[in-house]
């Protein structure tokens, strides 16, 4: 159903040459943001938050739809956590509005908001056992005891915590605590679940497993998830849409595929995944196929990017992902973009091999090749002369 980043990449490679369909449609066909008549569940209007002289969130407008798994992605200090705290009610906006299900949340204290938060530190109550932690929010609603018990049971099952029900947090492992925190924040059936770096404290393998568990739980419950993360792989894996933030502003809001394949700016291209940037100048072009002159290649590059309107002579950057570059010993005949260089470094990652190739001008380009077979007759070696080639469709032109 859902694909990991790696699967997305493999699929992209498979269809790299002939297909021209937009990559954003790799995921399931759920796209309320593309429907102009859809009413968003959360609407942030010109939201601004200042702390003294620093602006954490700067005039930000964003719609998030029901049942969406939405990710806020950005480097630390970009304002993503502040945005989440504004939604939870721990901070009040300096200007702008937060609208949830049609109601303005201005002045509504955190304990009256129909949103719940899963904290990065989990913030489990150390003096209560698992059951009491999960029941805490339900007790605040003064629900009947039987109702509380059945909902706690439901959550214990959902998070597979039944054998641990009477343990205290200090008797649980990191992964178990993470599940208690999730169960506690979901017990009240919030309209929106806010997740603040929920997997940051887990080790890599557990984190990947938990990403799928989160997606599974989100689909089963149909709750809107808003997750903050600085880990782009995580965002790509779980999210329906990703908002990339920088300096308190949204740089791009799009599906993981669009973010990866059609980054709007250099910041996004470089923040999400690996990318090679070739500075150049537009020589001309027609029908979306542009000729770009760059000091890094002898012949002008041919890049297909029909979305852009470019002027001749304009300074641009050609961005191409390492996995979209092929590495060959012999100069490939008839290929459009070929750059010659010398293998400078080889990084063997198991599934991929990354070649760092030094061009004659001194610049270094990265190319990664999937290790589809266990044996290679004559592997490319260090200091070998190689040709890097990529298709006109493999690269994108960035103007910002």
């Amino acid at each position, binding site marked *: 159903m859902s694909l990991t980043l790696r699967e997305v990449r493999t699929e992209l490679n498979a269809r790299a040459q002939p297909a021209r369909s937009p990559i954003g449609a790799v995921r399931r066909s759920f796209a309320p943001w593309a429907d102009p008549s859809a009413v968003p569940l959360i609407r942030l209007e010109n939201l601004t938050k200042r702390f003294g002289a620093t602006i954490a969130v700067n005039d930000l407008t964003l719609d998030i739809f029901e049942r969406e798994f939405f990710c806020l992605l950005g480097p630390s200090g970009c304002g993503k956590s502040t945005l989440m705290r504004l939604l939870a009610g721990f901070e009040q906006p300096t200007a702008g509005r937060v609208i949830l299900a049609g109601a303005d949340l201005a002045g509504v204290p955190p304990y009256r908001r129909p949103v719940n938060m899963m*904290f990065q530190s989990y913030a489990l109550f150390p003096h209560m056992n698992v059951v009491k932690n999960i029941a805490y*929010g339900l007790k605040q609603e003064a629900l009947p005891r039987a109702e509380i018990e059945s909902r706690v049971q439901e959550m214990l099952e959902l998070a597979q915590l039944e054998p641990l029900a009477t343990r205290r947090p200090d008797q649980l492992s990191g992964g178990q605590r993470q599940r208690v925190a999730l169960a506690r924040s979901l017990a009240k059936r919030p309209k929106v679940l806010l997740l603040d770096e929920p997997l940051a404290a887990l080790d890599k393998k557990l984190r990947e497993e938990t990403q799928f568990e989160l997606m599974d739980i989100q689909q089963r419950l149909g709750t809107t998830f808003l997750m903050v993360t600085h880990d782009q792989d995580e965002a790509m894996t779980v999210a329906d849409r990703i908002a990339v933030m920088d300096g308190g502003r949204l740089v791009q809001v799009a599906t993981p595929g669009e973010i990866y394949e059609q980054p709007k700016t250099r910041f996004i291209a470089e923040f999400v995944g690996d990318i090679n940037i070739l500075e150049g100048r537009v020589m001309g072009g027609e029908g979306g196929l542009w000729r770009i002159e760059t000091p890094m290649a002898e012949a002008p590059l041919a890049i297909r990017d029909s979305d852009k309107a470019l002027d001749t002579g304009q300074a641009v950057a050609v961005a191409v992902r390492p996995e979209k570059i092929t590495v060959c010993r012999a100069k490939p005949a008839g290929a459009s973009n070929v750059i010659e260089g010398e293998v400078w470094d080889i990084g063997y990652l198991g599934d991929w091999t990354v070649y760092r190739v030094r061009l004659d001008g001194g610049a270094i380009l990265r190319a990664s090749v999937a290790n589809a077979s266990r044996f290679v007759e004559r592997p490319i070696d260090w200091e070998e002369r190689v040709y890097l080639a990529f298709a006109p469709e493999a690269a994108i032109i960035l103007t910002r």
Partner: protein
Amino acid sequence: MGGALRARAGRLVVIGLPYLWLAIFFLLPFAIVLKLSMSDPVTAQPPYAPVLDWRGGPGHWRNFLLSLDFENFETLWGDDLYWSAAVSSVRIALVSTLLLLLVGYPIAHGMARAAPSVRPILVAMVILPFWTSFLIRVYAWIGILKPEGLLNQVLLWLGLISEPLSILNTQTAVYIGIVYAYLPFMILPLYSALERQDPTLLEAAQDLGARPSKAFWTITVPLSMPGVIAGALLCFIPIVGEFVIPDLLGGSDTLMIGRTLWSEFFSNRDWPLASAVAIAMLLIIVIPIVVYREIEAQRWEPRQ
């Protein structure tokens, strides 16, 4: 080989020194007091019998041991004065500890919530009174509480009262003095327990629908219990045996076991009975602490 031996000797010294210290400065005096409490008073120097002479030989040692008895404890048990002194001491200590908790908790809570840069200054302000002699501070309270003292002057000047209140030499003055003197001992453990608390726990509680007051009672207070208990014990134990404050600020009606002990020792020169009072006081205080620690140890034992 030699290294291992040296390491063992070193470990022995490190572990042994505190025990040696306790043996010399706690166990030995305690044994002397225990022995005194089982002796008889005499009009002599020293004012008790028997006196142990180490050079007396086995016969003397045997006679010495045989002449020890629990007569003084029987006297204590049979005399209402000691009973009411003990009960009154415990009552005053309990009420004072409760008052200290009521006054100290908000102060400690406020300190723990202050900006981190201000906190060391606040802690210093709590400790500052220790730089003045305890006795002088208690004497100062006499100046404040006496009929023509500062408090009455202020109240008269404000027109709140028309006659000076007689506070000095009453139970009230004793409570004021005790709460004032022991407040730092209550605030500091509370502060250290509250300051350690993770503020995101309160955010989590509010996020789950608890109003700030509810979050305080269900999260902050239970998590500060170790501090509450440490502060309460730190105050309760010395208040039970408190002598200076009831003697200087209290009246003749303030019956406390520390005062009884003092008068037995100095006025009646009955060292054995005074020692018996001291031992009885120790039991009153130690037994509840041991019981409490047992309960706590069981409560916190990890369940699997």
